């Protein structure tokens, strides 16, 4: 029998081999001092590891966890009540500010609301107009992109008609590999920069 590999040596020490194999190893160890030393060194190490004492868990550990579990739902309730209180306080503050403005400007409180209402809706209308213009710009941009892609595909179609089907396959594969390589290099560059930042 040849000398033991380290993997086999550990398998022997941890009892993960058959009894027949184990007998072979015992026979080999009796005749081979190098393997015997290697086994003994690792046996001592594994025995020391397996008798390492565990970390002492404090006696109140479980109670601490249970306390935190019981506090968790109560916190959620407090949080909701706080949100509700903040909302009510905010609304009351808003009404108070409006009342003060109405008193200072000497206007009827409801007239002030009517003017506020009109002003508010005019802002909404202006906002909607801006959004509509932005949507139109996006639409135009997409139309340009569509035309651009159309031109490219037509160009590729003409190019494909000029070359053989084998050349077409090679061209497609080469393009695909080029895109993959580009993506890989970009990702690598990005990751390297990120690592440098860290």
């Amino acid at each position, binding site marked *: 029998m040849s000398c033991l590999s*380290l*993997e086999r040596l*550990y398998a022997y020490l941890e009892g993960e081999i058959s009894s027949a194999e184990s007998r072979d190893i015992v026979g080999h160890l009796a005749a081979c001092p190098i393997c015997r030393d290697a086994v003994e*060194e*690792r046996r001592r*190490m*594994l025995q*020391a*590891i*397996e*008798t*390492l*004492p*565990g*970390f*002492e*868990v*404090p006696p109140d*550990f*479980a109670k*601490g*966890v*249970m306390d*935190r*579990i019981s506090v*968790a739902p109560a916190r959620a309730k407090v949080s909701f009540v706080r949100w509700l209180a903040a909302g009510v306080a905010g609304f009351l503050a808003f009404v108070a500010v409006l009342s003060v403005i109405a008193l200072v400007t000497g206007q009827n409180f409801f007239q002030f609301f009517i003017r506020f209402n009109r002003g508010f809706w005019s802002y909404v209308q202006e906002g909607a107009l801006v959004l509509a213009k932005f949507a139109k710009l996006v639409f135009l941009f997409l139309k340009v992109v569509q035309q651009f892609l159309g031109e490219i595909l037509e160009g590729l179609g003409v190019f494909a008609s000029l070359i053989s089907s084998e050349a077409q396959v090679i061209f497609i594969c080469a393009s695909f590999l080029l895109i993959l390589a580009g993506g890989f290099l970009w990702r690598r560059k990005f990751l390297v920069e990120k690592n440098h930042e*860290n």
Partner: protein
Amino acid sequence: MIIQKYQQPVFNYIGRMVGERELALDFSQEVFLKVYASLGSYRPQYKFSTWLFKIASNAVIDHWRKRKVPTLSLDQQPDDAEDHCPIQVPDENPSVVRQFELRELRQKIDAAIDKLPPSLRELFVWRHINGLSYEEMAEIKDLPLGTVKNRIFQAKEMLKRLLEEPA
């Protein structure tokens, strides 16, 4: 009770992974809170301890990501021993010299385990301190069985080299 049954293995695992006793205690509590909050997603066809260690492992990985302390180079000297969890050596050996030798060896092993790269240390701790099977570890980490065995083998040989280094 689940906490009492699993507190020791979870604390042993997290203690070895994060190094500081107080942090490990806090972390272990967090793991049990997460387990409590996720009990609804536990599927009984899987072993409970496997599911629990998966949660613990994810918590440790999150901690490393936040703290950005993933590895300790083997060229560096270990930090002060004060920051590490204390170990208690039982007084079971009759000889004072033998007791001292054993204590010294355990302290060396303790420091050497801290020096293992986290990906090896985690599997090593599960195997040789928590006593998990290779199959359980493969399931927890979603790794092939061969990879798990190979990493644990690497960890043991690295540990042996570390123990041979002069103090």
